[in-house]
């Protein structure tokens, strides 16, 4: 199980947060996901055998939100 922390561009509507959480949570291998609305951060635990931090970042980008940086921890 790995943890990824992504810094996003500032979020302006609370529904953006639900949208992102929903989408990332739907990815196979994601155990939990939390978007910090005001800090514009996404924290997620995922199974590195099933998906990768870059894949998850792509999911976020596809929704129209810029991912500024990704950090992965074991």
């Amino acid at each position, binding site marked *: 199980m790995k943890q990824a922390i992504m810094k996003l561009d*500032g979020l*302006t509507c609370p529904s953006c947060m639900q949208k992102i959480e*929903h*989408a990332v949570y739907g990815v196979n291998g994601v155990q939990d996901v939390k978007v910090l609305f005001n*800090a514009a*951060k996404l924290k997620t635990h995922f199974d590195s055998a099933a998906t990768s931090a870059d894949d998850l970042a792509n999911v976020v980008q596809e929704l*129209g939100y810029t991912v500024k940086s990704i950090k992965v921890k074991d």
Partner: protein
Amino acid sequence: MSTSSSMSKEVTKLNLWYSQNPGKTSAVLAVLIVISFGLDLLHLGTVGPVIMYIAGVFGTIPIAIRAWSALKMKTISIELLVTIACIGALGIGEPEEAAIVTFLFLFGNVLEARTLAKTRSAVKDLTAMAPEQADVVQEDGTIVATDIDDIDEGDQVLVRPGGQIPVDGKVLKGSGSAIESMITGEAKPVEKEVGDDVYAGSTLDSGALTVETSAAGEDSTFGQIIDLVENAQDAQAPVARFIDKFATYYTPAVLVIALLVLIVSRNISLAITMLVLGCPGALVIGAPVANVAGIGRSASNGILFKGGNAVAALAGADTLMMDKTGTITTGKMNVNETKTFTTDTDQAFAELAAIEADSSHPLANAIVAESKKRGIELNAAPEMTTIKGRGLVNADETILAGNPQLMADNGVVLPAAVQEAVTAAQNAGNSVVLYAKDGTVQLMVAVGDHVRPGAAAGLTDLKKHGIKRIVMLTGDNQAAAAQIASGLPIDEVRAELLPQDKLTIVKEAQDKGAKVAFVGDGINDAPALATADVGVGMGGGTAVALDTADVVLVKADFDTLASAVRTAKGTTRVTTQNIVIAVGTVVLLLLGLLVGIVQMGSGMFVHEASILLVIANALRLLRNK
């Protein structure tokens, strides 16, 4: 399959471009709208309206994409309302309405993002202070600059004069003075020597240190503070959570109502205007934004709220209960008097100090500190058991060290001389530790503490800000407690309490309808902190309080406590105002629609204005002291 996926890629790219260039998008829209109106004025026939259609479509596309991506996640968003309204407007030949609405919506979003960033600036400043790198000493003695996330417990880190201390840990080599105001609230530099604890986020004023890491990055105390504040800004007060829930049903409801209007009135224009007017804009943002500004501002002043809940609870508190030792007083105890009842003073004191050396009680610390001062060598002590609120006792109860109650519990009768000395010391505001061996009191040590500077002023200020009753709780005797309370605006003193009594007193007050804020150090009053309507951690060290309290005061003084209550009240007030503004806007717009003075464009304008108004209202919180 491949075409559809490449198309969705194009849409994704377009969506990203729009979201990264909201300013450009709205500027292009504005230019198109102005050109179109200009051409109309020049009576250039159909060119003006055509450009207006282009503007309407150009503006609707990014909003429609966002509406679609939300819809895929089963969320009915504001964007969906706006998209339907704009498509409708384009369909019934009102392109200027669509163009203006999308312009106002997109430009409004730009302004919202800007002003929202301002409400978040206080916390941004805080996170910017988090260390990112550390100079790690390698096994061969070389030094490698390492990313903070790659540093492990036990790594040795070099800190240069003027540099930032990057990790929590113990000083291994060197000495210096550190400024720890972020962690302890103490503005003055603190001397650091081998064996002392240092904290990430503090700066080394002078000297050089090698530090053995105990925690780094998010695990350090400073990392936890940032994490707490970031989470707190999202954790909303009950009223805001209600609005959030409401808004998720409200938006679909607007869609249904507009549809009903369409069916009943057969008037597309009226129905799509309903869609725009019903947008819950200020309602969604109004309450959270107050939270963000209030919590952010407090954090930069060393007041950490764990969330909107804590803010609301502190604002609503009418009774303040506080622990005496370490909260009202500094908790720094000094031995004021030692009185021996045997022939060998030093022997008895050395024995007592050796026993107390294993305890972390403030009284024990004072006695051990005193023994160091006197240069007394501490010998091995017998194994002792702690009896809460009483003292220490060995296995066969022949050695006792504690308060007079402990003596009484164990059948040790105090001779008149001892009783006299105890009473005198207690009346002077001291706590008394008695040391007895085989049923005879050998020694009395009087330990005293002093009231925090500024306590009287801070508590008086609190009474002006809605705190009706202040109660002091202590395990000490009545005389010592009364001595401390005199000169402070304290309504009630409850003395000679056991730790569990504090919890009972909090519950009793709550049963009588009081909203209790409990202020304590979080060390031995954790149950009371947890039971009170709001627990404020003060004076026990930030790391301890982060676990148990709802509100943590990094700087332990009453000025900060009063400021926390003021900010909580201010934040709650702004939240209420913003909800009134948001609901009022929707009501006024609907009334305006009924009497026919509100159009789609003007409706959107009022909406965006109300959103900016609630953000501006929240920004006032950043200015408050």
